[in-house]
């Protein structure tokens, strides 16, 4: 255990490298994958959508290019190949359908879950999208069986002023509080992204934006997740003056 402690202390100290800021929107990647609803009961289907950003720092909501079963990983149970039939495409949108109770039982067995359980089955998906010429793979779990709702972002503000429609002006100097509130099941976690300035505490309900330059304009994104597969996002815009 002594070795682990040493490693972790070292990791905590050295992890502050000069890397790209994870809250910076100016890097093409997927910010979140949403299943609507996150849990589907037999007869239902969940739509898969993405929130992505590009190298210009512009976030957009779109459908994935491809949704498939993930490749088997060492030590992880894999879904049987026939489970791929649960993934369908309809008018450009991707869906995951909950199977019948019989197929659910077969999946439960494939995943090594108790056969007499009615607990939802985690159904992992491989979600891919090409952004600025580069494939960006993601993982997402849709729960088969049971029902749940995505969380809802109720407020999103900068220095107490609401965001969401139109540009909200802020002063270039100083620090600005980005605050969000959300409602939903389970434990909620937050992630903030901006197109300019520097973010501190970007994984907290209230983040701090600083070092904005006069004239900078760009998007602000808040993504809220819960620990039951639910996700929600909200976009706003700021202008530094």
């Amino acid at each position, binding site marked *: *255990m*002594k*070795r*682990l*402690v*040493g*490693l*972790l*202390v*070292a*990791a*905590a*100290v*050295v*992890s*502050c*490298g*000069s*890397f*790209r800021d*994870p809250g910076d929107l100016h890097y093409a*990647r*997927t910010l*979140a*994958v949403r299943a609507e609803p996150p849990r589907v009961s037999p007869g239902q289907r969940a739509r898969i959508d993405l929130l992505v950003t590009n190298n210009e720092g512009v976030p957009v909501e779109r459908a994935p290019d491809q949704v498939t079963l993930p490749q088997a990983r*060492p*030590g*992880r*149970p894999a879904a049987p190949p026939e489970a791929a039939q649960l993934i369908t495409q309809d008018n450009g949108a991707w869906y995951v359908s909950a199977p019948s109770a019989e197929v659910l039982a077969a999946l439960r067995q494939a995943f*090594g879950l108790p056969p007499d359980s009615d607990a939802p089955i985690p159904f992992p998906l*491989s*979600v891919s999208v090409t952004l600025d010429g580069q494939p*960006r*793979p*993601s*993982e*997402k*779990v849709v729960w088969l069986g049971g029902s749940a709702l995505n969380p809802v972002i109720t407020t999103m503000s900068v220095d107490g002023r609401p965001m969401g429609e139109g540009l909200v002006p802020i002063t270039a100097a100083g620090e600005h509080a980005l605050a969000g509130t959300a409602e939903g099941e389970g434990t909620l*976690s937050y*992630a903030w992204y901006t197109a300019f300035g520097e973010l*501190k*505490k*970007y*994984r907290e309900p209230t983040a701090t934006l600083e070092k904005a330059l006069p004239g900078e304009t760009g998007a602000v994104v808040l*993504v809220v*997740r819960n620990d039951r*597969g639910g*996700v929600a996002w909200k976009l706003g815009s700021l202008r530094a003056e």
Partner: protein
Amino acid sequence: MKLLLTTVLVLATAAPALAGQPVQGIVLDGSTALPIPGATVRIVGGAVTLTDKYGRFQFNDVAPGTYSVEAAKPPFQSIADTLVVAAESPPEPLQLLLIGEVASVALVEEAPKRPPPPAPGGTEVAREEITHVPGARGDVLTAVQSLPGMANVGTFTMNAGDGLIIRGSSPADSRVLVDGFEVPLLYHFGAVQSILPSEMIDDVSYQPGGFGVDEGRASSGIVAVNTRRGSAQLGGFAEVSFINGGLFLQGPIGSSRRATFAVSARRSLIDTFLPAVLPKDGSLSFTVLPKYYDWQARVDWQAADRWQLSAFLFGTYDGVAFASTADNPNDPALTGDFKNDTQFTRFIASATYEGPRLRNRLSLTGDTSGLVFDTSADRYAHFTAYGGGVRDELRYTIIEPLSIKAGGEYLYQWWDLAIKFPRPPKEGDPMMPSFTFDPPVETAGTYRVPNAAAWTAAEWQKGRWFLAAGGRYDGALYNRSHIFQPRTEAKVTLGKNRVRATAGLYTRPPQYNDENLYPELKPERAWQFTLGGERELREGLTAQATAFYTDRRGLIVYASNRADASNVDHPYVNRGTGRTYGAELLLTTRGPSHFAWLAYTLSRSVRRDAPEMAERLFDFDQTHNVILVGSYRFGKQKHWQAGARFQLTTGKPWTPVTGSVFNSDLNYYRPTYGTLNSERTELQHQLDVRIDRTWFFNKWRMKAFLDVQNVYLHPAAYAYQYSYDYSQKDAIKTIPILPSLGLRGEF
């Protein structure tokens, strides 16, 4: 105590001693700088005298001329110097340093009156030499890393505190013993200093492999430290350096001088200087700056002619607490407050009987150790251990040339654990532990860990031949694993050549990191084979070569992978295999004013984590490891000593990250890895220098030293860290320079 002290001679053309100038001087033990009373000092072809109780001598009337002067006190050896007496005035006082061979890096102790020939891969290094290895800051247990077979892990690196990596094996495979019992750690944080000051060490037995039946529970090497009894003369020192400050005192107890004591204590001073070099960005603040203490006390009593009793108490403490306010995108929970305290205390009492045919040493030990690691992220590790044990070692000469050695050991430990922590990383695992995403090991309770061992071997020594054959039993009683390990050894001396070969089975119990929590695990096994030879090329120049091969079975590996939550109850299996093979070369030269050695290790160490998996490189495989050490004593009275150490090492294997997958539910990037250990970090090289200066006063001496590690500012990459999405990579480098300036006053 293995003292092979070298006498200083003053050589010159022989000349008769005539009436003239007085000549004064002092004879000192070069290893301790303590005066040597009763030494014979002789002007060759002339007068003879003895040193007084302060090591001083004087010749009253020495005619002008050039002389040869000899000082001797067996078993000290001789070296030379020159004395010139002028007609006008007396010469400067002579200071004759008897350079002592105290810290022996060699094989296990054999029969007291029959020192063994060097082992394959082992060698003997004088205390005076091992304490002046540049870059080691005077620390014997750091300096042993300049010998063949040891991997270079650096100072203040992530792996520096792991322990010793000997002949391509994990630190878990080797043991560090102090007076026969294992210590839980060898170095203070960052491996900046070992837990024992050099002055408390009598000898260090470094056995990279092929050791005898009396040591076990290690499948690779043994570093056995024997502590030092106090001198019968009162002496001591106070020392301060950038690294630490310390006090040492030794002397007789009572007037009979049959009992002696030695006490020592040190405290780090790094916390004094650290604030000046820490970054001022405000994201990292220490509430307790990193600091350590260690302390030692030993009492010896010659109870009767053949009975020696000793008691040794020692302990250490390392502590640090800090707060990080920076976001940690790779492991978001790994931020906030951290506190780490590590300590242990051990008591060892022994009784040794030494007769003409029988030698027996009975030792008892008790210890307590503790580790506290707290974070503000609901992860903690609280570990308290209490232990006790008994060990007996016997050697009996049945009839010349046949003798036996036998012994037994019983160790019992209670562990109180309260842990909620990521699983520790294992060899071959490219992933860092994650506070945020790893399923934690969560347990609380008391674990009892009894271990027993017994051994015996027959030894036959006649003429140039020595043969030994025997076996050792090790029982990890808590999981009912019992192993018998046959071992054999042959040595022969052919003129100036000495050859030695060993073969045997070696095991280590599953007691590293969290292995103890899973009693289904069995000990790892290693068949070791070594063949070595030594030849004295000419006086003072010795060459030594060793070839070794180790076959490893039942290595403890992950059942699947570390982050697999489905294997929390049984995360490990004895499924891995491995091989290590290579050769070591050591070229040593010694003289009255210098020592130097060239150590080269050629090694390949590979592992296979499952029968169906491909062989891969061991985490610390170092194909080439070249170390050149040299030191020269100069000045009219050898007051100055300057040395350098250069090391060139193949880079450390590492596993490249080939991409990453965004996990939307957890909002983190899971790296995808290339072939395990398929790349290497850059070539590692560094130059260390050390300069010593000694001033002699009437009743005391002052020493100053400057020891600089990595003098040409070459921070080498030894690992890599990644951005949150693994699209960017940055090297983690060794510390660019580590200077240590120290002062010591001795009496």
